[in-house]
């Protein structure tokens, strides 16, 4: 069987699998569309594939490593990969230009047979080309994914097999008439029509002699008996139904193979595009090191927000964080100090790692999550004063509905839509419970009471990061491990914007 298996070692990617329930929040909060656009380079199909594959996060290390290795091959042999990608594209092109298509279900079996027959004929040389590429490169590629793929092509597309295909395509023209066997069904109507191979081809002279005595009745239609001819055509179709089905399925199988090949390669092509884009900006990427979900691991060097780099079109500040063993990361510090950017870089790196991609960092290691959730302050909520806090709680409650042990939660100024005392108390209760239930939380917050509580009470599974501000007031957009400070920096921003003007 021809299976592509470049995304999973043992199965096709299932494009119909549901996306996570919080796909909208994640896409918005992590600016994922910016990432997909860079991967797509203007190709809608690449965009859709990047989105679909990335949003279906992997939960096992083996598959992540499997994809990382395939991707390494792609980065090493970009031209070969793009050559292979051309094959399904050319198939689609021929289909379009030559009006090749398998007739839909309601068509007659005769029409289905004829359409799929043509489609098969147009595929044979493309399959040969694919095999030549496999013959040439099977030794170069190192990943188990590509090695299996090439070996499969060589095994399944042998010369004698392609010859058999062509023999059947000739026989299916039925020069001797269509021979059907049938039985009497309900109401003495013919049923169970089966297309048969005529016996005389393989018969001995004795068998032919014995068969001679059995009677045969013939009937010739009147030349103007159009209704009769139509009925006869329908009977013929009924006999051809199974074989038309088989040939159409075969054509569909080949078409499907090309489609799966196109889909799975499109993901790697997207990665390749992103890699080339970041390389042009001079930004580093690294293959991350995933560890099991029940461990607590987070350490990175030069972790940057890839979407920010793509939007700005230049290199951006990266962070070095060592938070192994930590379950709660509390980030405090001045506004516009890089806190949200850091939070997004964490989410993106986690998400890219669990798609089997490289990440935007010099090095990155983290435990897997069983689900990544974001609870970001919503700008548009500012006008609806009364309902805002309740809206926040509602969203939080929805997240709690979906949390499983070892999920990750990124909070950006959550529960700030009420006074600090209330917000801190509710946040404290929520965080304490989440910690107990083994949820990993990154929390950017101005709730000083909350930060102080965890600083004073909780154990060593909490780490405090602070957006750095130099003594002269300038921000470096870097985070440092540092205890939370009570004063905030909003006044800076105020001054910056309003200057020193008096009311």
């Amino acid at each position, binding site marked *: *069987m*021809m299976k592509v298996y470049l995304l999973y070692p043992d199965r*096709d990617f299932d494009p119909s699998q549901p996306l996570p329930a919080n796909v909208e929040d994640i896409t918005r909060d992590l600016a994922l569309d910016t990432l997909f656009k860079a991967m797509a380079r203007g190709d809608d199909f690449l965009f859709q594939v990047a989105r679909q594959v990335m949003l279906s996060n992997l939960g096992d290390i083996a598959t992540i490593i499997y994809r990382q290795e395939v991707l390494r091959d792609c980065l090493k042999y970009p031209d070969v990969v793009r050559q292979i990608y051309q094959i399904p594209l050319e198939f689609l092109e021929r289909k379009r230009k030559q009006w090749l298509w*398998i007739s839909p*279900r*309601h*068509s007659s*079996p005769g029409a289905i047979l004829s359409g799929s027959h043509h489609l098969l004929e147009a595929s044979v040389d493309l399959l040969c080309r694919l095999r030549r590429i496999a013959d040439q490169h099977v030794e170069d590629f190192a990943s188990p994914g590509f090695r299996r793929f090439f070996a499969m092509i060589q095994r*399944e597309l042998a010369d004698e097999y392609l010859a058999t*295909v062509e023999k*059947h395509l000739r026989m299916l023209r039925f020069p001797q*008439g269509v021979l*059907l*066997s*049938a*039985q*009497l069904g*309900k*109401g*003495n109507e*013919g049923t169970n029509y089966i*297309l*048969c191979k*005529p*016996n005389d081809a393989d018969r001995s002279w004795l068998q032919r002699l014995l*068969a001679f005595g*059995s*009677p045969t*009745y013939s*009937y010739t239609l009147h030349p103007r008996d159009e*209704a*009769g*001819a139509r*009925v*006869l055509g329908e*009977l013929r*179709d009924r*006999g051809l*139904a199974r*074989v*038309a*089905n*088989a040939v*159409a*399925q*075969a054509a*569909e*199988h*080949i078409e*499907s193979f090309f489609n799966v090949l196109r889909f799975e390669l499109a993901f790697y092509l997207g990665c390749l595009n992103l890699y080339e884009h970041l390389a042009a900006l001079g930004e580093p990427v690294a293959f991350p090191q995933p560890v099991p979900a029940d461990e607590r691991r987070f350490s990175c060097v030069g972790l940057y927000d890839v979407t920010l780099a793509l939007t700005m079109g230049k290199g951006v500040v990266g962070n070095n964080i060592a938070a192994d063993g930590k379950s709660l990361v509390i980030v405090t510090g001045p506004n516009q100090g890089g806190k949200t950017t850091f939070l997004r870089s964490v989410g993106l790196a986690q998400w890219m790692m669990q798609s089997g991609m490289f990440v935007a960092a010099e090095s990155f290691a983290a435990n897997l999550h069983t689900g990544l959730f974001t609870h970001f302050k919503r700008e548009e909520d500012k006008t609806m004063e009364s309902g805002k*806090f309740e809206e926040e*709680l*509602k969203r939080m409650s929805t997240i*709690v509905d979906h*949390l*499983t*042990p070892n999920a990750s939660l990124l909070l950006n100024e959550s529960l700030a839509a009420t006074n600090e005392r209330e917000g801190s108390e509710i946040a404290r*209760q929520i965080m304490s419970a*989440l910690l107990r239930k083994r*949820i990993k939380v990154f929390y950017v917050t101005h709730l000083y009471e909350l930060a102080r509580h965890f600083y004073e009470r909780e154990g060593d599974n909490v780490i405090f990061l602070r957006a750095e501000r130099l003594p002269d007031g300038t921000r470096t957009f870097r985070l440092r491990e540092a205890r939370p400070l009570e004063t905030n920096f909003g006044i800076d921003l105020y001054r910056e914007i309003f200057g020193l003007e008096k009311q």
Partner: protein
Amino acid sequence: MMAFLSILGERDGFQFETTSQPDFFPDLNLDQIVDAITRPKQEYNLKPSFWTPLSDAETVRYRQEVMRDLENEMVMKRVKAFSERMIVVRRYLGLAERLDFDYHRKGWILEAALVYCDAVTALAGHLAGTSLRSRGLLAFREYLQRYIHSAAFQSLATEAQQVKKALSEVTYCVIIGIGRFKVKRYQGETDYSQEVERTFEKFKQRDAQDYVVGLPERAGMSHIEAKILEFITRLYPEPFAALDHFCTKHNQFLDEIIRSFDQEVQFYIAYLDFIADLKRQGLPFCYPEVTATSKEIEVHDGFDLALAHARRNSGSPIVLNDFCLHEPERILVVTGPNQGGKTTFARMFAQLHYLASLGCPIPGRKARLFLFDRIFTHFERGEDIHNLRGKLEDDLIRIHDMLARGTANSIFIMNEIFTSTTFQDALFLSEEIMARLMNLDALGVWVTFLDELASMGEKTVSMVAMVDPEEPTTRTFKVVRRPADGLAYALSLAQKHGLTYEQIMERLP
């Protein structure tokens, strides 16, 4: 035991003369309920049986017994299987009547006979091994046993099978060319499709789409197929001779009593099917105790069947309500906030009584209900408020007419009447009409915004549609027996959203 007559009642041949739905159906949403019940079974014309309430408690009990027997899953499954086969029998016979070619027509009559014998034998066999309690089904079972052991039925069944077997053993070949064909005996030719399938197997990616399904089954036979069939009768003459003989001997094989059982039992099946969905969602149904003598009624966990049906897939829970009347109480006066479930409650009260009078299990956990003579409803109509005087006049004429026709055994449902008049007028008119209703001694529900009506006398009972004490903006749709009261709330938002420490510890695995 009495001879079996009808599964709908012990009387001699049950007739439905009702040709249109009762006037109160739309107000109570009973029209929606009956539409939904009968929609899957339109070929049986069941609506008249749902438009005809019973007036004697004995027939109500006769039907309740049959319903209970049919609630036994095995009994229901078998009666349904029987009905499905009877549909097939009718379809085949109808088809045969329209066919042109003799052996084609006879072929379908044979099929109909086969299915009929199968259906009747299977039902008789299954019912014989089942414990039944209802007078109706016990009598029918006895009838069925006598029928299948009759000589006529026995010969029908045996001969049908013999003829069918001989015909189905015929195998032949057709060779189709352009404008001509040949027919011959089958001589072991091998299947070619398999070979093609095997060749292309390796290209399979996922479960492939089936292309064959589109071929329509031809019901009928053209001159070409008739010609082929003629050639086949020449190749194999014996089985067709046997078919000729069969059709002459058994030309009318359907039994009239069995045919009408099949029609009438659909009343039960349709209703039980309809409520099965709701029962699966955990909604309670029960067989009410029905009395024509006592007005001490009582319902636990009742609900509006139309509402429950409309919400069946929405996941929103249906609120269950209780009510009861003790001597000398007669009228439930319902007050409370708008959209609080008052109208639903009033509808439910009448629906439960109506469904009980059909002999059906009703939406509720436990019930004792009154066998009424008439139901009268008066619901405020939204339209036509331009001419207030004209409208009030019409309303009063209608109410007067209802009171004139009603008796002490009638049920009245008054829903938010006089809302468009002045308060003083509304109070005055309502009190007057209430006094007349109490004087009539009828049963009823009165939904109103006038608190005064709730305490008009010993015959009225005050009921209130409740709000959530935690949050007065939330309706609970509970209607409980109590005087109207104000509610206060103190509410923790976090608690409301399940986000306290304890709640999250509970919620997360």
